[in-house]
């Protein structure tokens, strides 16, 4: 039996969570004695296979086809489901990204397999696996079991450690039949510019109602750029129209777990904490000393963010 990691690439660039999934796959494979295989789907993606070799896969299957140049859920899921049918793996891992979650679910629907989404830990025990997945937006952590020969899981980005390791890294072609796509991709619009993707960022600088208006986000952007960080927002700032919904962190926004989360002018409502409570370090900057953010922040600064953030940016430039 094998453990399969379905790699995620866009324009030939592999996502960071793919390496996290491979590293976790390698740890589980070492514990259970399974072989580790990777599957990469796309067009002109041979170079991805070389990069995947660094993370210990015994075999890398490449489904390379012009019909797979643009990502569509149905074509990619058909390839993944065909690979599952061929390999009957014990476990299939992939990132819980926007694409990964739907791809895993559609493939699981075709292959009739159980899937635990958004896992934060996986343990192998007596040939079976236990999956930990936050439920109710992180207000509780459930432990799940999957019945059936093949189990699917998507992994929360930024939770599983990346480790390079050796593996045979044999590259094989995988050429299943690809159904005609029902969906046509008319355009892909990148909006994040030079900043990292929110769910994959090591550092996130977020702003809330305390910024006083949309122009307040200039401060957050300056701080983010001095740290190479992504920019997030509270629900209040999104609802006020100061920032697009894609930047919202919280129960009805993105769930993130960066190494460092700097919340400025964010009170720390429970629905916001649900989205960032697993960050390794939290910094809270707020003028209200009673703000709930100070109950969870590792480092809190009570004061005027209009003075603190520019000073912080200057200090970071010096350093």
């Amino acid at each position, binding site marked *: 039996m094998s453990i399969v990691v379905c790699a995620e690439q866009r324009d030939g660039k592999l996502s960071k969570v793919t390496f996290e999934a491979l590293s976790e796959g390698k740890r589980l494979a070492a514990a259970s004695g399974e072989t580790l295989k990777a599957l990469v789907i796309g067009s002109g993606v041979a170079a991805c296979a070389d990069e995947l070799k660094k993370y210990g896969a015994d075999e890398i299957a490449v489904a390379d086809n012009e019909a797979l140049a643009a990502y569509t859920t149905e074509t990619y899921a058909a390839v993944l489901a065909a690979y599952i049918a061929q390999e009957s793996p014990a476990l299939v891992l992939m990132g819980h990204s926007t*694409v990964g979650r*739907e791809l895993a679910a559609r493939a699981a629907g075709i292959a009739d397999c159980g899937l635990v989404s958004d896992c934060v830990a996986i343990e192998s025990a007596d040939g079976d696996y236990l999956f930990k997945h936050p439920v109710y937006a992180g207000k509780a952590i*459930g432990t799940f079991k*999957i019945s059936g020969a093949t189990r699917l899981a998507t992994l929360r980005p930024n939770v599983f450690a990346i480790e390079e390791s050796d593996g045979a890294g044999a590259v094989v072609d995988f050429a299943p039949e690809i159904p005609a796509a*029902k969906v046509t991709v008319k355009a*892909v619009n990148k909006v994040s510019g030079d900043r990292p993707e929110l769910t994959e960022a090591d550092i996130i600088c977020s702003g809330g109602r305390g910024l006083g208006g949309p122009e307040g986000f200039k401060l957050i952007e300056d701080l983010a750029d001095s740290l190479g960080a992504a920019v997030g927002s509270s629900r209040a700032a999104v609802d006020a129209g100061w920032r697009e919904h894609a930047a919202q962190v919280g129960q009805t926004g993105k769930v993130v777990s960066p190494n460092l989360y700097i919340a400025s002018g964010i009170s720390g409502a429970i629905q916001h904490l649900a989205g960032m409570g697993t960050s390794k*370090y939290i910094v809270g900057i707020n003028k209200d000393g009673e703000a709930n953010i100070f109950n969870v922040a590792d480092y809190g600064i009570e004061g005027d963010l209009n003075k603190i953030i520019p000073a912080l940016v200057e200090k970071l430039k010096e350093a």
Partner: protein
Amino acid sequence: MKIVTCIKQTFDTEAKIVVGGDGQISDEGVNMILNPYDEYAVEEAIKTKEKDGGEVVVVTVGGDKAQEALRYSLAMGADRAVLINDPALEKADSHAVSVALAKLLSDKEAGYDVIFAGKEAVDDGAAQVPSRLAAKLDLALANVVVAVELADGKATVTREIDGGTEELEMALPALISAQKGLNEVRYPSLPGIMKAKRKPLDVVSLADLGLSAEDVASKVEMVSAELPPARKAGQKLTGEVDEVVAKLVELLKNEAKVI
């Protein structure tokens, strides 16, 4: 146009989570609501009907209590509702729910032009049913959608992807799952609530659908649940702005080692 909306009843987002003695999450005394993302789906269905005509059918899998979420959708303006209610579905996972919905939609409720759903439910956060259902019904699928235009038997949608958006086009029938921001959700009016009481709400069992308990056997089981470890308040840095900023940078560098 026949417009179907798949919904789920969930805990209120303000609900406090309690783990019972059996290690499972207790629903005792919890206020139940229509899943927030499903509100956008119901709204989009009603807006579509208001523009193009037709009927809006809301469907769900759940127990007796789930009728409240269906009635709420009817009060918003949906025309009729179907509840799949069966003891064998009490612990239904995403697989089981999608099998039951797929049977209903390919049989008793066939002939739809578009299916709307929320992009995920805020309880299990699985985000699986729309994609699984699309697989079972072999449908064109667009998830996490923030804009929809239906015209000439086609759907043109904008959806969120990591780091941007995508514009997709597909022929109907198609399945579209809603993200926050798709529309402004209306509140049910008082006449709407009165009317909803008389709108048809069919309750069907697995036998009515021609399914057995085995067909909908769950593949995922929650063995136990626990509350997450509480985060502790750390230290508050005090002093002049220059001082606290210097202290913070020092701590982030040398204690936390995150910059």
